[in-house]
């Protein structure tokens, strides 16, 4: 679809959505009246900046269904956010919403090269979290064979990979890494597994982590992006070109805004990703602030898709640590550790304050191949890690080596930061 055609489609859908929330959701009607705009003032996507924002706090304040634009009788499923950063929020879906959801996930899978001939092992958790059921419905829509493994019981995951011949694994990247480690420990050569594609999402991960997972499982790993409040997985997905994630922008209108001013950033620059629903029925949101940091690329992609690409999410604006005035994302630390073979890809970041000075400690496991009986050699490893982290983050980092397997392996979203500062 050409850009003009897409803009027309988005504009027409935006007008419909704005009119629907104005007439059906008191929250939005009040907000728009406060700003002094009416649905007729929004003629197309060029007027998006006139519209009010929606935040996670708004969803909490109106919990559970205060932002719904349909009566509860039209809900066919209710998901809830995983509550990574506070109490959960409820997200109702109409029948049409679920059809749109599965359509988007099917497209996302297709973007990664999955076909109806594939066997998709869904190792995201099933339940209120959208990962499990979202991937499940999308893969079903595509016509692939679905194995609803859900998360956990890693030994059984490996049995399923072998016995059912799964060709696609869908889970969080940290769990994929854990499965890769378990495959190695079981003495299985990943080349003997039929697995060929990974669809990983629900948490930020680095390009280096992708390389590590690809090597460990003998697959190509793709990014599937989503968040429960907007839909779930499938809002965007990386393609074979592996240079950004194509957004289903006929359903979700993206913006990138400066995190301070909330004004659009210059083309291609990083900022906070904001989505406006274009087709959602049960609970359409205007300008939902995701807190994810990304950028948009409107250049045509070599894969042939014309829809806009977002960059891999580098982190969340609320994940960002400010240490001695320097912005630090956990993903930067991960990138460094994954490039150093002496370190295992498991780490914990501990932020504390001694007097008036913030301290940043990175606890990491040493790879057994580099473990030595001589203190001097282990100190060389520690020095190497410290040097690399200091350089990448531009602040002094304390590196603590910890015993093998003492950093928690995770089956869902990884918790990587402990902030002990009492601010």
């Amino acid at each position, binding site marked *: 679809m050409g850009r003009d055609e897409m803009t027309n489609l988005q504009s027409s859908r935006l007008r419909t959505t704005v009119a629907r929330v104005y007439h059906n959701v008191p929250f939005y009607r009040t907000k728009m009246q406060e700003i002094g705009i009416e649905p007729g003032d929004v003629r197309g996507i060029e007027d998006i900046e006139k519209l009010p924002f929606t935040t996670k706090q708004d969803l909490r304040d109106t919990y559970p269904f205060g932002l719904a634009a349909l009566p509860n009788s039209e809900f066919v499923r209710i998901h809830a956010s995983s509550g990574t950063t506070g109490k959960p929020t409820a997200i109702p879906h109409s029948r049409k919403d679920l059809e749109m959801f599965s359509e988007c996930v099917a497209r996302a899978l297709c973007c990664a090269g999955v076909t109806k001939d594939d066997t998709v092992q869904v190792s995201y958790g099933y339940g209120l979290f959208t990962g499990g059921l979202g991937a499940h419905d999308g893969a079903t829509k595509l016509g692939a064979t679905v194995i609803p493994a859900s998360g956990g019981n890693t030994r059984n995951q490996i049995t399923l990979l072998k016995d059912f011949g799964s060709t696609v694994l869908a889970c969080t990247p940290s769990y994929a890494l854990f499965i890769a480690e378990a495959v190695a420990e079981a003495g299985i050569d990943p080349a003997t597994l039929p697995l060929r594609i990974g669809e990983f999402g629900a948490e930020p991960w680095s390009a280096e982590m992708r390389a590590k997972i690809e090597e460990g499982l003998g697959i190509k790993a793709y990014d599937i992006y989503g968040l429960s409040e907007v839909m779930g997985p499938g809002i965007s997905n990386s393609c074979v070109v592996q240079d950004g994630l194509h957004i289903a922008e006929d359903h979700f209108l993206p913006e990138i805004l400066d995190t301070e001013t909330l004004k659009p950033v210059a083309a291609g620059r990083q900022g906070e990703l904001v989505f406006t629903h274009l087709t959602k029925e049960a609970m359409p949101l205007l300008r939902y602030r995701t807190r994810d940091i990304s950028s948009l690329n409107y250049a045509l992609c070599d894969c042939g898709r014309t829809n806009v690409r977002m960059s891999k999410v580098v982190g969340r604006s609320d994940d960002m640590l400010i240490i001695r005035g320097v912005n630090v994302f956990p993903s930067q630390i991960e990138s460094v550790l994954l490039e150093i073979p002496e370190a295992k890809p498991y780490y914990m970041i501990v932020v504390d304050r001694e007097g008036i000075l913030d301290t940043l400690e990175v606890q990491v496991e040493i790879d*057994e191949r580099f473990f030595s009986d001589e203190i001097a050699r282990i100190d060389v490893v520690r020095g190497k890690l410290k040097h690399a982290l200091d350089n990448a983050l531009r602040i002094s980092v304390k590196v603590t080596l*910890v015993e093998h397997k003492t950093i928690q392996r995770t089956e869902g979203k990884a918790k990587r930061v402990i902030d002990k500062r009492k601010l």
Partner: protein
Amino acid sequence: MIIKQLSVFLENATGHFLGISTCLGKAGVNISALSLAETAEYGIARMIVDDEKKGAEALREAGYNVNLADVIGMNIPDAPGALSEVLAKLAAGGVNVSYIYGYSSEGSANLVLKVGDPEEACKLLK
């Protein structure tokens, strides 16, 4: 002679070495010599055991980082100057010693030496 030494990485914290000795005990592996090197945060337990393969396997199974290294095990007289004689030979041959541990009893002393080049060290000590 060259013998195998089993080393394990451990955090410098209460009860951590107990985990290692319990693991070896359960596996039926006997420790005949032991040295613990410690820093503020972590330590290395270095052990001579009767079955290093079995010991390493049991410890890895329990999730420890294990290293097997060649060290020199030797018996010298329990007398003043005996250790100097050994070290002088190694120094003359240009072999560096990383660490030593040992003990004496009943008139002789047992030493474990970690050196840069164990084979060269053996030749020099003959």
